[in-house]
Structures are given as structure tokens and as C-alpha cells.
């Protein structure tokens, strides 16, 4: 079931889109903003709201890089793996980041459900390569030290919420 707020957010998108159906990506984004990812159940609910079939909506959901059809952690780290960051040795930082997070590769989520690490195409911050985004925040000129600081700060910020249930855990329940 979509919440009142989710319905309102979708409708708002419909108003500024060229047609109601054109709001489909926006609707997926709006629901993802509140739930963290798009489960099959969410997909069906949104499709019904937009008068589409779930399969039709899924063809859109799976096309766009930033719509998640699997559970993600509370924060998504997007490490740029495109050419300028590659030249500036992002791969070296990737190894450091994996160790720091205790995961073994892209696409994985930390045990506490706090971070998911994903690769990203060029973030348009090539003059500050290597670069990454955490959620909607951009970080450039990355070094091992600055990565440590960034991750630690997120952990401290979220510290008081650490016992709260993560979207990842919620997502698993829905499945």
C-alpha cells in the first residue's frame, strides 16, 4: 500500500510531467526515497496507481541506474569508475574502501546495513578525481585518509540510530 505522502509525491510529479505516464520514473524515485528500494510489492502498488502493468513499470525501473530493485543500505556509496577517476587510480581507493567497510566487492552491503557500495559512471567531477557520492553528497580529491574520515563521520552521525531497523532489514522482510 502506498502511503498518503507517497501518493502526494507521485501526484506532484504527474503535474509537472508532460503526461501522467511520464511520471513513472519520478514515481519510482519518490517511493524509493521513502523505502530505500523498490520491492515487487512496491512496484505493483505504483503500477496500479499509474494505471500500468507491473511488467511495464519494471521495464522502466530496471532501465535506470539509480532505481534499486534490490535492498540497499541506509547510505549508498557511489564510487566513480570512469576514465578520469581510473587514471587517478580509483582502484587503489576501492581496495581501501572495501577493507574499511568489510565487504568484498561492488554491490555488497555492510553487515550493519549502513552502507551499500556501487560503481558509478562519471560523476562530472573530473577536476577533483577520484570522486564519489554518498547519497546526494559529492566528495572529490579522495585519498585513503579522506575516505576514512567520510565513512567515520557517517557512522558517528548515524550512531544514535544504529539500533533502529535498517531499510535493508525491512526489505528482507518484505520479500
Amino acid at each position: 500500500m502506498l502511503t498518503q505522502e507517497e501518493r502526494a509525491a507521485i501526484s506532484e510529479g504527474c503535474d509537472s510531467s508532460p503526461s501522467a505516464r511520464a511520471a513513472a520514473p519520478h514515481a519510482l524515485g519518490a517511493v524509493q526515497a521513502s523505502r530505500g528500494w523498490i520491492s515487487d510489492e512496491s512496484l505493483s502498488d505504483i503500477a496500479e496507481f499509474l494505471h500500468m502493468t507491473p511488467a511495464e513499470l519494471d521495464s522502466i525501473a530496471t532501465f535506470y541506474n539509480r532505481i534499486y530493485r534490490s535492498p540497499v543500505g541506509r547510505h549508498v556509496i557511489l564510487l566513480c569508475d570512469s576514465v578520469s577517476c581510473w587514471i587517478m587510480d580509483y582502484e587503489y581507493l576501492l581496495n581501501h574502501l572495501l577493507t574499511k567497510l568489510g565487504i568484498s566487492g561492488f554491490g555488497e552491503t555492510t553487515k550493519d546495513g549502513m552502507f551499500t557500495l556501487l560503481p558509478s559512471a562519471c560523476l562530472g567531477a573530473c577536476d577533483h578525481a577520484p570522486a564519489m557520492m554518498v547519497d546526494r553528497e559529492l566528495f572529490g580529491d579522495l585519498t585513503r585518509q579522506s575516505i576514512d574520515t567520510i565513512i567515520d563521520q557517517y557512522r558517528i552521525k548515524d550512531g544514535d540510530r544504529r539500533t533502529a531497523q535498517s531499510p535493508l532489514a525491512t526489505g528482507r522482510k518484505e520479500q
Partner: protein
Amino acid sequence: MIDSPLTHAMKPTKEALAIDEYEDAGGYAALRTAVTEMTPFDVTAAVTDSNLRGRGGAGFPTGKKWSFVPPPGKRTGAAYLVVNADEMEPGTFKDRLLLEQNPHLVLEGALAAAFAIQAQTVYVFVRWAYAKAAQRLTKAIIEAQRRGYIGDNVLGSKFCVRVHVHTSHGRYLCGEETGLLNALEGKRASPRSKPPFPQVVGLLGRPTVVNNVETLCNIPPILRNGAAWFKALSKTGDSGTKLYGASGRVNAPGLWELPMGTTPREIIEKHAGGMKSGYNLRGFLPGGASTDFLTDRHLDVPMDFDAMQKAGSRLGTGTMIVLDDRTCPVAMVHNLVTFFARESCGWCTPCRDGLPWTQNILADIEQGRGRPEDLDRLELHCKLLGPGRTFCALAPGAVEPLQSALKYFREDFERHITEKRCPYKH
């Protein structure tokens, strides 16, 4: 007269120019002149005279593009102006600067363009990663509405216009003109078959012009200062200034608004501070991931549309990626092709199947499993994925760095194969 019309008013703090600051620097005067003193035809003519060419990469003449839109007497219903702010070409970061630091210039350019093609709706298609840009643009739209630059009867004229910001959910194809229109309609951002061209059949089947951010930013200064001034800004036959950039192992990666036709040597040595200590220049991609490599032999070729093409590459987005002598060119091309293979929308076969195949061959060579005949196979792919065989420019763009790498860095490919390892890894 100002010689850097796109960036001169920007604040050292990197904050967005507020509407008062923008107006104080002469902002919105061009829109006022356009809607109160000029006809849409006059505006298009002024832009055509200026010889402004599209800054998104293809370099199509902007005035000509607008002139293909049927005038209201010859069409029924709406027309649309779409701002392509879906910057995602690897190595490119120029539109971010304009969107974040001078959003009113983007808006004024879009509004003047909408007036020229008599569109009543503007969509600004912003990439998801540019959250700050979208936020600043949204604020600028509200400011502009309050001052009467957006809405019904703009500045007392008959021109009525609405502006919407659409944030994408990420895919390289969203930046392709017709892929963008599909994305805006809420579909998969696969490209459309052309013709018909979007100027005739575009968004929701209506006449639509899609212009790049930097292109539109040039419109207000052209209308304010005239075509002769705009042409005089350039060092060559292509008019205006260009936002040039450099990334890679240079001392000071960055962006600079310089006369069109500035040389790579000046950009790298003077503005980017030269190569980092211990690194020498091996080559460069002049304008993003989908342009052919050039080498030190091309450092004095003017960076404009025609000269870059004659040199065997393209100006593209004008933001160059520098390859140094300690970075493996085979691995670099592998990185580039991996990006294109991942971003291929799968709509047509050469791109969907050819790019992963190319990616696998390059991985083999890079990891020491390559065979001599692989080079022929790569050459063949450059042809089979080239222009004329696909719906859009993704695959032809993907093979541009590959085909030029095979030409300029052939020895590196051969060494990988004979030595069965990457000679750059110690």
C-alpha cells in the same frame, strides 16, 4: 567588451548568482529585448548569424536547428524547448559549472530559445548526480517567476512560458537527444529512429528543440552584443568562447572559458599547469570519452569543430582527458569500452553484442591472454560498430578511442600480446 561571457560574472565563492546580481551584470536584458522588440524570427536570425554551434558535442548550428521547427501557422498545438543538462560523458564536467554557478544564464538562454521557436513549455532535464544544480535551478526559476520572466505575458509581451525541472534517474542514453525525449515521456531512454527529427516530431509527438546547457548560455550574450562581437571572441572560424577542461595527471585539472580555437598546448601547459612531475604526455581525448585520441603531434591544432575533425578526432565537449606515459593505453581503452558496454541500452544489435565482445577482447589483451588475431578482430569491430550501423551515436562514439588507440598505441597492444602481460604493471 567582455571576453568571457559565460563565466565573467561568477562569484569566487562558487555560490549561484542571485537574480539581483545577475541583473546587475546585465542579465535578462537580452530576454527583455527579445520579447518586447524582436520577432521570434529575428531571434533565430541573430543566432544563425552568430554561427553558434551546439556545445553538447555534435556541433550542429543552433540557429539552423531552431529553423526546422514549423512556425505556429504550420503546426497545431504545442512545441517544446528541452534543456539537456544530463551531463554524463566521462571526463566532462562543464555544464555542472554553468548550472551551479550561473543558473539564471541557463534560464535566460532557454527562455529566449523558447521564444524563438514559440514554445510555451521548457523542460530542464537534469542528471541525478547534479542535485545541487537542480536545487539552485529550481530556486532560480522561482526568482524569475516573481520578476515576470516566466509565466503569462512575459514582461508585458504576448509570450507565455512555463519551466519545469526534471531530474533523471541515470543512464548515459538520457543525454542522447531522442533518448532524452523518451526518458522525459517516462519510457526507457532508448534512442528513436531519425527521421523524423525532434524539431518536427519530438516530445509527445510535438515539435521539440533539445539544446545543451552551454549552447543556451551563449544566447543572451549573442542577443545583447551581436553576431560580429561573438565571432570576434574566437581565434578561428568557429565563433564564440568554449569552456575547455582538462583532467588526468596534470598539475591543475580544471575548466577555463577561452576563445574557441585555443590549442591543446595552451590548455595543458598554461591553464592546467603542465603535466605532473614524473609524468609525460602520451596522448589526449580532446572532448570526452567518445572522441578519438590525439597525440603530442596535435598539440598545436586549434580546438574547434573543424580543425579537430581534420586532425582525426572531434571537439566533442571540449573537456580533454590526458593520458600520461605511466598509464597503460590498452587498460584505458578497456575502461572506456567497459563504460559504453554497461551503458548500451540494448536497442540495436551491433552495440548490445559488439561492445561486450570488444570489452572481453580488451580484457584478454590487458591480462596477457591476447592473441595476434585479436587486433584484427578489434579493427573489425571498429567498422561494424561504426557510423551508419546503429540508431544512435553510442557505439560509433565507443569505438573512436579504440580505433585511434590501435593507430597511435599499436606497439602497446602488440607488447601485451607478445609479452603475455601488461608492461605497465611492475
